[in-house]
């Protein structure tokens, strides 16, 4: 009987609390019935061992009683999870490596300094990847949990309509609408940034009044040449793609180069000096009262800087992912 009790207790340890009492009670009774049915005495250890072997391992029995979600990340979500981890890892490693490249050439050359930079990269990649992996697992586990809870109450499947299948895609087909839209945006940006910079303003409420603050200060002027170059390169590239009518390997290579240039520029804008940093004197020179300029610099500007950096960082991540995808497509074709 002691062996049966040990078995029942072990099964109970693997069961959720809500099932434990009920299942162990029934299991104990069933095991005693089964032992009697084998015409064995309750203290016949050999018969008890044979019977428990037939029942199976306690953890297996307990698993078969559990009816709730059985996966941290189920088979439906697993492919998406793996793809997300791969893309996130590539982006992180790419960004950190890019930072290390810039750091390498941003200072006097010495092997010890360069070696230190790249050793730090490995350490940063390791710690960042582990944190990122944990966060991605947590997100997918939560999604899986809510999907399972939702599916439990929904017994009927909606009928699948084959006409909703996505159309066949030509991998070399160009997106004319998207290209033309980007041509228009890039042209507008070139004109505005270079000939009408005063149009870029923000309105801040200072002392209850709306105050117009010009955004493009001296710091922005430092990146404007590079920004112009990237915009012009994009315009030329998109014009060539429209002219060709289809993607070709040399067009894909050119597009990739332009994307990398954008990534480098965005990196400079994210990790460089704040673009919207404006000195009090500069604001006063552009028509703002001294007191308002001081208040703006102290209270509003930090929030604006953070928002701009965040937006640029998102743009940078998106551009890096785009570059990786274009590289993959170029290599495959």
């Amino acid at each position, binding site marked *: 009987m002691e062996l049966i009790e040990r078995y029942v207790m072990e099964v109970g340890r693997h069961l959720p609390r809500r099932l434990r009492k009920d299942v162990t009670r029934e299991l104990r*009774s*069933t095991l*005693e*019935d*089964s032992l009697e049915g084998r015409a064995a005495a309750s203290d016949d250890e050999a018969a008890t061992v044979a019977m428990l072997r037939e029942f199976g391992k306690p953890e297996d*029995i307990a698993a*078969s*009683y559990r009816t709730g979600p059985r996966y941290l990340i189920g088979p439906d979500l697993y492919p998406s999870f793996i793809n997300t981890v791969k893309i996130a890892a590539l982006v992180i490693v790419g960004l950190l490596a890019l930072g290390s490249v810039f750091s390498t050439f941003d200072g006097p050359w010495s092997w010890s300094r360069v070696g230190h930079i790249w050793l730090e990269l490995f350490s940063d990649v390791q710690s960042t990847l582990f944190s990122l992996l944990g966060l991605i697992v947590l997100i997918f586990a939560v999604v899986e949990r809510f999907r399972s809870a939702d599916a439990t109450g929904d017994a009927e499947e909606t009928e699948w309509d084959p006409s909703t299948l996505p159309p066949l895609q030509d991998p070399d087909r160009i997106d004319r609408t998207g290209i033309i839209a980007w041509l228009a945006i890039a042209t507008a940006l070139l004109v505005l940034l270079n000939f009408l910079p005063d149009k870029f303003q923000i309105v801040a409420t200072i002392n209850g009044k709306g105050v117009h603050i010009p955004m493009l200060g001296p710091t922005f002027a430092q990146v404007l040449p590079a920004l112009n170059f990237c915009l012009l390169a994009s315009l030329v590239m998109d014009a060539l793609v429209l002219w060709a009518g289809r993607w070709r390997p040399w067009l894909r290579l050119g597009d990739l180069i332009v994307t990398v240039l954008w990534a480098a520029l965005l990196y400079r804008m994210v990790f460089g000096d704040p673009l919207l940093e404006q000195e009090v004197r500069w604001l006063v020179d552009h028509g703002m009262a001294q007191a308002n300029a001081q208040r703006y610099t102290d209270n509003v500007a930090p929030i604006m800087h953070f928002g701009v950096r965040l937006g640029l960082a998102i743009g940078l991540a998106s551009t890096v992912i785009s570059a990786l995808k274009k590289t993959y497509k170029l290599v495959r074709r």
Partner: protein
Amino acid sequence: MSDSKHTKGPKDPRAADSLSPELRRGALVLAILSRLDGEEHYGYSLRESLAAAGLVIQEGTLYPLLRRLESQGLLDSRWELAGNRPRRYYRVSAAGRKALITLRGEWQDLVEVMARLTGE
């Protein structure tokens, strides 16, 4: 002209052994509902009853399955003390009876189809 060569897969002499329980597993629910329709059984007595009819079910399979069928609303259960031993008695619920009728019909269809396919 067809290619009559068939590629041979790896030979696994245990394949039939693993397929046989899968075949039987599909019939378990119908067997349990049939036996509990109009009769009450506790776990061990149900197993003995099914074994007497020729269907041997592993204990580790039967008892969790009874719980699952109950959680699905196909079985009702009650506790009863037999001496100082508590036993959980199961019987088919109203929903279980409806499912049983459906499963019986599907089983009949399946038997006919398999008879044609296996040439019996």
